[in-house]
């Protein structure tokens, strides 16, 4: 059996729709929204053409999409959906319900800015807003990563120690709509990798009737259930890595929570999420030729956050720039920056840091912007101070 198919050229959305087709989940309930649309559009075509067995539920809104997913997953069905931006925001209430009911729903969230001003382009403000919702969050750089992450999702989400919903992100338009290389697995290899859904308590088992979503009473156990959710997140960290490792055995593509590039001998480093990592690597090649010791850390697993690991990886560098494609208004910095500062403090790592905000509402991030950041870091490593407030990359007018 050939494990992988030939290299092909597809958009990020096509790659994910293809992975979903190979997974052939029991239920997909989804509502179209730019830039996620052709994931569910392609999938509905697979359904119409009889290429999958999936029950496709066309809903009237994203709130209904997630609600249908919750009912479906509680019934014991493998359930997937996809969304973006305002669609994710409309799901908000039930996104929390999915996590607290411990339902292993898998959702693709194609990153797009939240309004306003109304904007359809990429940034991470949609999914970053959901970082405390109790979903596992995996961020992907390109179509291949998005495809691979989709294939790896159910073994993580359904793992008995985890039982949590999982969302996969990739950058709207930049990855969702642009054509890139993809080496898919064979259908059989995908089926083999994800295996059968583990048996769990469910609503359709009439021999063992159960109640989902009960009222917790006035003085019940809400508090303990929240603690259990956090313990499941902690348990997910090793499960995700084990799944990454098992995937590597099949495909040769080895993923980590943090993907490190040239970090062994780096003096300075950029930490980034998503497609900007590719831009950063091209800049690094140029700067390394000049003799600058630059490194890059790309965050894949954001929830659960690999706190100890990021601190260890950054402990050897003299200056770090954290690039955020979302802001946390009124906070000390963007969401990734806050996370990393906390990790460094917690692990006792004292290195110079700066927060760079980029790409909001799809603002371009040019190689020159990244080069400027690396040069600022190199100066800091040589003794200069780093800005205490946010540095905005490619801002107009200043």
């Amino acid at each position, binding site marked *: 059996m050939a494990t992988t198919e030939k290299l092909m050229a597809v958009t990020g959305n096509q790659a994910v729709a293809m992975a979903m087709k190979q997974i052939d989940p029991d239920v997909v309930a989804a509502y179209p929204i730019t830039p996620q649309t052709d994931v569910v559009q392609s999938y509905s075509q697979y359904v119409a053409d009889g290429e999958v067995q999936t029950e496709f539920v066309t809903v009237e809104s994203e709130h209904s999409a997630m609600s249908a997913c919750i009912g479906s997953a509680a019934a014991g069905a493998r359930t997937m959906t996809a969304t973006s931006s305002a669609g994710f925001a409309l799901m908000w209430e039930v996104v929390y319900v999915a996590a607290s009911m411990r339902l292993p729903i898998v959702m693709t969230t194609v990153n797009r800015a939240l309004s306003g001003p109304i904007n359809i382009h990429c940034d991470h403000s949609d999914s970053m807003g959901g970082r405390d919702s109790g979903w596992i969050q995996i961020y992907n750089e390109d179509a291949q990563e998005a495809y691979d992450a989709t294939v790896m999702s159910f073994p993580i989400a359904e793992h008995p120690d985890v039982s949590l919903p999982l969302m996969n992100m990739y950058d709207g338009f930049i990855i969702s709509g642009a054509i890139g290389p993809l080496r898919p697995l064979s259908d059989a290899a995908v089926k083999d990798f994800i295996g059968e859904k583990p048996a769990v308590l469910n609503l359709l088992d009439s021999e063992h009737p159960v*109640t989902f979503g009960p009222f917790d009473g006035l003085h019940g156990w809400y508090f*303990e259930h929240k603690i259990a959710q956090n313990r499941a997140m902690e348990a997910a960290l090793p499960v995700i890595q084990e799944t990454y490792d098992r995937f590597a055995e099949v495909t040769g593509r080895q993923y980590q929570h943090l993907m490190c590039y040239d970090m062994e001998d780096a003096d300075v480093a950029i930490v980034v999420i998503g497609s900007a990592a590719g831009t950063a690597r091209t800049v690094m090649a140029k700067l390394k030729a000049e003799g600058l010791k630059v490194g890059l850390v790309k965050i894949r697993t954001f929830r659960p956050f690999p706190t100890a690991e990021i601190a260890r990886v950054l402990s050897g560098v003299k200056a770090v720039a954290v690039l955020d494609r979302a802001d946390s208004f009124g906070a000390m910095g963007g969401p990734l920056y806050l996370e990393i500062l906390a990790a460094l403090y917690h692990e006792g790592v004292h290195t110079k840091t700066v927060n760079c905000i980029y790409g909001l509402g799809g603002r371009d991030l040019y190689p020159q912007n990244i080069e400027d950041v690396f040069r600022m870091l190199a100066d800091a490593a040589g003794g200069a101070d780093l800005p205490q407030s946010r540095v905005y990359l490619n801002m107009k007018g200043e």
Partner: protein
Amino acid sequence: MSWDISDIKNWGPDKHEKGAVIPEAGNAVGYRTGGWRTNRPVRDDETCTQCLFCYFYCPDSSVIVEGQEVVDFDLDHCKGCAQCATECPVDAITMHPEAEFRRKS
């Protein structure tokens, strides 16, 4: 299944079913909701015609019927709403402040 929750007040996060699932059907009967009742229904057996209206109207299934006859109220779950008393066609049910019964006992 039989779900032993006798010690549930002391359960920590790992003792509960994931996602607050209740793994047993119909166990709400073990949850005594009658404690907030302020008025208690009392049925006069002489007046009662056994029409069973009270049984059908009670929103909490708290009118106990044995065979074909109303015999009692389930005071662990009766909330004292007086629907039974209101619907009884012959006014066989009257409502009495719970405090009266407390004083007696």
